[in-house]
């Protein structure tokens, strides 16, 4: 109840190929997140799964049944949009109930499900208000509520938090995580915020240029990125890439080291460099340094450290945490 398979799904808008053959397996109850840079086709893929857009070729199976010819309302999905997309002329209650009403659900049942969903999202006080009379966060919760009452096999979220401010984003993120635990439903979630991706996902799908770069759990992607793109995309600040030739190594084309996998010292170390800039974040200190050997490096130190710009320091990578990539950008394991 709630699995999804994509088989070589392609999509072109005229001459532009947006998706170039997507294969994916989502198991029942999984929380899958699509990440990737802007314009890589995340929303398009989600809309194809929802049936709002036809794939140019390929198959989409929900619960093992081919749904390419099934209209969106009959696919057993529910979608939450970035812009909330609430019906402006309907009350919160009617916004949530419209889908069920269209499907001919008995009134009592609509009432009951609306009540349950609004309790889950603490929306009881606002049931009779119009969307215009709600704050952004409340609107987003109504949009989520509208998805919940449909009791779908598959939840689709398209950047649901990107219009919220930072504090609200954290709250709503926790709420979505809780909903996933309570409903045990399959969720597919698009974002380009990697914190959301790392914290929510059972499985992350990294998309770029219309193809899947890597699929895996957050820690797999962090510890074993399959290529340069994934290595640079996952993790913040981004991984340092160093031309292997400059280090005199011949076993790789590019060497990668995460900022948090380096140590700094004033006395001695592997790479000598000048500090360009220091950012004090309280829990972390981020040091940007310029080294003759490696070029610009970012180091992330835990806790407070009193480095200053123009100081000479030595950076040393933790052994065993170097990533090696060949000339095609693929990881050498």
């Amino acid at each position, binding site marked *: 109840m709630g699995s999804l398979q994509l088989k070589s799904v392609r999509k072109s808008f005229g001459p532009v190929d947006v998706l170039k053959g997507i294969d994916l397996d989502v198991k029942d109850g999984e929380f899958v997140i699509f990440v990737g840079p802007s314009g890589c086709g995340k929303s398009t893929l989600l809309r194809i799964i929802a049936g709002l857009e036809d794939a140019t070729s390929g198959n989409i199976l929900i619960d093992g049944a081919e749904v390419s010819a099934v209209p969106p*309302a009959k696919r057993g999905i529910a979608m939450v949009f970035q812009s909330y997309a609430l019906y402006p002329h309907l009350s919160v209650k009617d916004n949530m109930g419209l889908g069920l009403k269209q499907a001919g659900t008995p009134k009592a049942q609509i009432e009951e499900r609306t009540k349950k969903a609004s309790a889950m999202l603490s929306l009881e006080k606002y049931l009779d208000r119009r969307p215009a009379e709600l704050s952004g966060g409340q609107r987003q919760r109504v949009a989520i509520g509208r998805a919940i009452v449909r009791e779908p096999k598959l939840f689709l979220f398209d950047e649901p938090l990107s219009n919220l401010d930072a504090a609200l984003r954290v709250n709503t993120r926790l709420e979505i995580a809780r909903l996933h635990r309570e409903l045990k439903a399959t969720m597919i979630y698009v974002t380009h915020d990697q914190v959301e991706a790392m914290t929510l996902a059972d499985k992350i799908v990294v998309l770029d240029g219309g193809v899947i770069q890597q699929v895996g759990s957050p820690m797999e992607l962090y510890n074993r990125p399959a290529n340069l793109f994934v290595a640079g995309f996952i993790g913040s600040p981004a991984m340092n890439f160093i031309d292997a030739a400059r280090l005199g190594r011949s076993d790789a084309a590019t060497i990668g080291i995460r900022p948090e996998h380096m140590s700094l010292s004033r006395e001695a170390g592997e790479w000598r460099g000048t500090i360009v800039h220091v950012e004090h974040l309280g829990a972390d200190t981020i040091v940007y340094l310029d080294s003759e050997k490696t070029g610009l490096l970012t180091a992330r130190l835990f806790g407070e450290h009193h480095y200053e710009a123009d100081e000479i320091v030595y950076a040393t990578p933790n052994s065993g945490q170097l990533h090696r990539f060949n000339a095609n950008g693929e990881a050498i394991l």
Partner: protein
Amino acid sequence: MSKARASLSRTALVHAALIAYTLVAVFPVFLTIINSFKNRNAIFRNPMQLPTPSTFDLVGYQTVLGQGDFAVYFQNSLIVTVVSIALVLLFGAMAAFALSEYRFRGNTLMGLYLALGIMIPIRLGTVAILQGMVATGLVNTLTALILVYTAQGLPLAVFILSEFMRTVSDDLKNAGRIDGLSEYAIFFRLVLPLVRPAMATVAVFTMIPIWNDLWFPLILAPSEATKTVTLGSQIFIGQFVTNWNAVLAALSLAILPVLVLYLAFSRQLIRGITSGAVK
């Protein structure tokens, strides 16, 4: 305007311009109305003077209302105008929705074709239209006028409405699709309420030329039973003598229904005209 941005001289200037324009626009209407309440001599001797006890005269209105058929003319004008507006809005909105919502081959071309009517006056086709109406036996029917006016109003309606419909959020329509609304329900229940200001704008722009038109009633429906107000008033304008009292009274009366329709739309209209500008 917020207090912080308003300077006295700027506000004064803006108001002076607006007042000047209002005077220019309202003056002919005002002149028509005051003169319709005066006797014939007073109209010519002192056209600018307000009716005084000695010059006050309702003879114009008596002539017009005594004419008997005037009620029919009014009714004809109203039927033609209201039905035409309704059809223009319905078909215009549907065409605009299709053009702005669906990707299909020839979409742009179709849009250009539908907008062509804005540039080419429909009167150029009068002879062909008359031939068509004769062939279908529609001469001297209100249907003929309604058909022509619907065709005349559609280009601008499609043009304005499709621009507005492009601004309706895709996500909203998609949410409707996921909730199982049919394309018709999405059109009527989600999109139309959101473009209501634009609809009012189109309604007003469509209404005035139809109500004032003399050309097509004269050519397509000049019979006594199908005359419109504008055409009906012409009987008072003779080649040698013109009954000015009656003409002015008829014109003053003809303003009334337009005014009522306008007021009905105006609240929406003002929002419609300014909605793009101040967001």
